[in-house]
């Protein structure tokens, strides 16, 4: 199978509608680079054109049918070849026959459900793409075009602060507090560490953001922990009664929203890890989960119309989403 669409006989090119006006987003690739792709939301239609160019002019292309698909799938790296499709739409473009000249087909998948956000991780990948297949007796010519999907949420109704007293009996007691338990991706973590009892010799204290990706199920359960950010919030030895402030800006880091049990295949969770290090390099730590969510951004006028249009069309269908798209009109000048 030739995935680049370069057969010996024909070349497939997929052009998505609105490529000049639609917003793009970046997603990490497998080799740690960044791919820039068009951004879609749940409920929006995916439409475009498929151009098929014949390599050898004058020679016709015999085929067993041409179809275009919209696929949303989860790929588990340890289980290659076994992809789990959770969205699969097909449209036939041409019945079996011959192509004698360069042809352009249009396609329109209206109101496509995109329940999960695109994600590229260390052991798992969730992607959405348009795939065109020219079926032939010997080998199909295939071309795929990826898109990025973001899931938006609104400000949570309940967002309590995290406040806890932890420590080692008679040696170290601290009270830590983070202003919220749910943060959006451009939020700021504001908090403090209050020392109630200090009987060990502390050298410094640091705060780290840890991403834990859990994929697969028994027997092959994969847990991958990655430290996204780490920085020192205190240098030196504190005494009882001291308060150390915390201010951590999330916008500077490559974060995704918290994903719980996506299609029962994987989860991505984030933790704040508070670490105190003493003079003998002993580490005392406390890990606390935080929920990250994606806030809808303020859109330009044209895009806002596009979004609200998509939402209106979508809510007309029977499926109800748990987290509605953020209402970006907040009373200020639009």
């Amino acid at each position, binding site marked *: 199978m030739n995935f680049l669409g370069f057969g010996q006989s024909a070349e497939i090119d997929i052009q998505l509608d609105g490529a000049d006006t639609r917003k793009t987003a970046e997603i990490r690739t497998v080799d740690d680079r960044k791919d820039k792709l068009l951004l879609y939301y749940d409920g929006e239609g995916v439409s475009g054109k498929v151009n098929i160019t014949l390599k050898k002019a004058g020679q016709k292309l015999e085929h067993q049918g041409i179809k275009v698909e919209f696929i949303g799938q989860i790929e588990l790296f340890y289980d290659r070849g076994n992809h789990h499709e959770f969205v699969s739409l097909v449209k036939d473009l041409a019945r079996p026959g011959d192509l004698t000249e360069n042809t352009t087909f249009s396609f329109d998948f209206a109101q496509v459900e995109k329940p999960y956000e695109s994600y590229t991780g260390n052991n798992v990948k969730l992607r959405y793409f348009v795939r065109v297949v020219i079926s032939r007796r010997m080998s199909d010519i295939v071309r795929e075009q990826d898109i990025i999907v973001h899931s938006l949420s609104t400000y949570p109704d309940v967002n309590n602060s995290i406040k806890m007293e932890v420590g080692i009996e008679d040696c170290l007691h601290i009270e830590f507090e983070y202003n919220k338990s749910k943060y959006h991706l451009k939020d*700021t973590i504001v908090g403090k560490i209050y020392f109630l*009892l200090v009987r060990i010799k502390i050298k410094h204290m640091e705060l780290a953001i840890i991403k834990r990706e859990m994929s697969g199920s028994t027997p092959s359960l994969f847990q991958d922990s990655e430290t996204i950010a780490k920085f020192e919030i205190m240098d030196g030895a504190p005494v009882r009664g001291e308060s150390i402030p915390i*201010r951590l800006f999330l916008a500077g880091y490559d974060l995704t929203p918290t994903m719980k049990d996506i299609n029962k295949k994987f989860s991505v969770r984030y933790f704040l890890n508070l670490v105190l290090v*003493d003079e003998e390099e002993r580490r005392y730590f406390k890990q606390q989960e935080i929920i990250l969510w994606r806030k809808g951004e303020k859109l330009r006028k044209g895009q806002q119309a596009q979004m609200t249009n998509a939402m209106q069309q979508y809510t007309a269908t029977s499926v109800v989403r748990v987290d509605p798209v953020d209402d970006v009109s907040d009373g200020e000048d639009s």
Partner: protein
Amino acid sequence: MTESSSEATKRLNVKRQTLDDAYAAPANFLEIDVINPITHGVAKKRYTDYEVRMRTNLPVFKQKESSVRRRYSDFEWLRNELERDSKIVVPNLPGKALKKQMPFRQDDGIFEEEFVEDRRKGLEVFVNKIAGHPLAQNEKCLHMFLQDVTIDKNYVPGKIRNT
């Protein structure tokens, strides 16, 4: 929108630290020195011991100042007790130097000044690492090692109870 965002990023309320707490003596004072190596005895029946002097204000230690004499085998005993009873990864002792105890050596073997000094330094690092570990501070063997004049090898191993 701006008012709510400044509310969201305002510093949290902190209790003011009392001046007593700020300027009080630190509650984590623990100093242990391994000093004054003295070699006792003559010829084949010699041994070296060291003064283990501790000064602390940690409440877990009954005596705030103590000074005892300990030899290398006492340190080995302490290490074995902690390996067995406590959950910590016990640091290593300086070498046992069995080769230096073989007969027919040019120098004085384990009673050489340089060797004794190296061993003294290693023992000091060892005992400081252990005594500063919160999980080792609860062990009776450590307290007996640091503060009792003689080590009772027939003691009942256990943890110190908080008074």
